[in-house]
């Protein structure tokens, strides 16, 4: 049976709880039960305002926690994120009121960069052994809460790339040269059980954190990060097989890009995102960034 991916249109961040609830209901064999220890990883990659489309919106996390609390009893929920080269999620958490949301839904917070680590052996493309936070040894269910946006290195980012943030070290940019291999490896080591993509305000035409906010009003839900990302790639007009991290993830058996689409969108073209970045501009952006890096 093919992986089920649910694509649903929303009315901004207003009717999210009902839309998320029905989207999750459309996914068969969720395998989450009352009392489970649940990890949720949003994308809090930089100090950008949620209205810029750069990070998972607080309203999105609020709605996901609301749905989980309504559907299941006694979940032990922890929201996780790590420090990045240019950001500290602890600050982002306070700044945009994520901390209040966690308090409201009785969820804990863990900055992966300060969690003790263990080494895990994997048959990866870049790593033979990967250092991961200990929290990944003690959970029952893992939900990725990624953001839908274009990216100058990986063309776009959704569920697979969100896993890059599970690497606890701060200076993750050192992996940029082998980013597709590293993303595939992290997904092999810790594969999400459920992927939910915040595509309500997506971001187009820029590098990782700067681009044009686009009110695309969609949420994508599925169990396999590869099939979820295959749908996301098509929304930006890309062939999934030409996206490095998707190709590499299939190669090492993370998942498959075959999917069966459910939800209230029959044709992907109806919700296709106007990806205005040109090939030439992408080259120039990367060139500029490389020159800047060498000079500084």
């Amino acid at each position, binding site marked *: 049976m093919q992986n089920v991916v649910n694509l649903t249109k929303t009315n901004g961040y207003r009717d999210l709880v009902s839309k998320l609830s029905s989207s999750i209901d459309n996914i068969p064999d969720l395998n989450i039960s009352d009392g489970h220890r649940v990890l949720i990883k949003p994308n809090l990659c930089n100090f*950008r*305002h949620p*209205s*810029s*489309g*750069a990070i998972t919106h607080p309203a999105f996390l609020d709605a996901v926690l609301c749905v989980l609390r309504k559907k299941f009893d006694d979940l032990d929920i922890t929201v996780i994120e790590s420090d990045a080269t240019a950001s500290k999620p602890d600050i982002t958490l306070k700044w945009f009121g994520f901390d209040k949301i966690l308090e409201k839904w009785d969820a804990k917070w863990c900055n992966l960069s300060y969690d003790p680590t263990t080494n895990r052996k994997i048959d990866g493309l870049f790593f033979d052994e990967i250092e991961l936070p200990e929290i990944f040894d003690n959970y029952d269910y893992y939900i990725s809460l990624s953001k839908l946006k274009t990216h100058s290195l990986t063309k776009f980012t959704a569920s697979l790339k969100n896993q890059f943030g599970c690497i606890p070290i701060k200076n993750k940019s050192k992996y940029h040269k082998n980013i597709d291999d590293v993303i595939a490896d992290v997904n092999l080591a810790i594969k999400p059980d459920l992927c939910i993509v915040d595509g309500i*305000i997506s*971001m187009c*035409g*820029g*590098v990782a954190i*700067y*681009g*044009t*906010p*686009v*009110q695309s009003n969609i949420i994508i839900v599925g169990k396999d990060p590869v099939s979820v990302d295959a749908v996301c790639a098509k929304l930006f007009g890309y062939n999934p097989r030409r996206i490095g991290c998707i190709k590499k993830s299939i190669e090492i058996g993370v998942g498959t890009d075959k999917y069966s689409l459910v939800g209230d969108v029959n044709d992907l073209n109806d919700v296709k995102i106007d990806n205005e970045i*040109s090939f*030439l*501009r992408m080259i*120039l*952006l990367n060139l*500029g*960034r490389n020159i800047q890096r060498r000079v500084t």
Partner: protein
Amino acid sequence: MRVGIIGAGIQAKVAHLPAYSKIDGVEIIGIADINKKSAEQLSKRFNIPHVYGGYQDLIDNQNIDLISICTPHNLHKQMAIECAKAGKHILIEKPMVTTVKDAEEIIRIAKDNDVKLCGVQNYRFFHSIQESKRRIDKGRIGDIISLHGYGHVFQSFGSRSIPWIFQEGSAGIIEDFGSHLIDIALYLNNFNKIKKVFALGGNFGGNLDLIVHCQIMIEFENRSLATLDLSYLSGAKEVAVFIHGTGGQLHVDVRNDHIRETHQYDTPLDEIVNSYNKLKGVSRGVIDRSYFLGAKTYYLTLIEGFINSIENNSEIPVTGEECRNTALIIECALKSIKEKRQIIIDEKSNSRD
């Protein structure tokens, strides 16, 4: 639509009358001015059958549906009230009035007499402003953080065409071009409620009690800020707005019809595209003559929109309430300059449509 004009000065001559003349189905019935000679000159030029020395006689003409008030703003209130009481729809030059109290009185009397009221805030109809508003509403720059407006305009001191600006004690540029820049800021910020106003400015060391340059700072309820920089002195002819949002920036060169949208990283390709777009905007302005006529070009859009709103009971292009908010900022800015403090605006003073 049968139209009457009060005031035969420069605005009637170069803006209102040429615009009315271009609209099908509009008949200009009469014109009134205290200087009857000026009114007669315009009546000959625009084939207007009735000329009056007093505006009350024009208002008494039963055949007129809509009156354009093109006089200095200190005369607006009385004229507008009399027009409304006579059942005439009113198009009123900027600034409609300069106090909230006067604006509310006009709005109330217009409502009581079931007539439509529209202000002349024609700058918001520049293509560049309309396009910026569309992009902001679409969320292309996220939420607005700050808005910086520049209104550096030339005004010939002692001008015979608008002597009211240079009277002792006049608010000068704040009431003159300031009302346009304030309206642009409010319009682009979706008429968000105003919380605080602070202004500095004056006569730049001159001996005339007149404001020739100033900066107005506004804080809105959505926490965004605006600074409006106004001057007669620089010799520049610059009308520009820089809008910074959480997801990008818009640099709007209003007169040259050019918008530069940025999202942090720019490349040489963007510079080329921007230069091309600027050239395109200027060329379009030269072809449709807006490059030379400036904001006068947009009287036609405004007046057509107002006539349409009267005939089809549709949305008024610039409502009395919107002009009231401009008056609120003018009033607070003048108070702030005089009392050298920020003015905090309470809930009651804010108004929205």
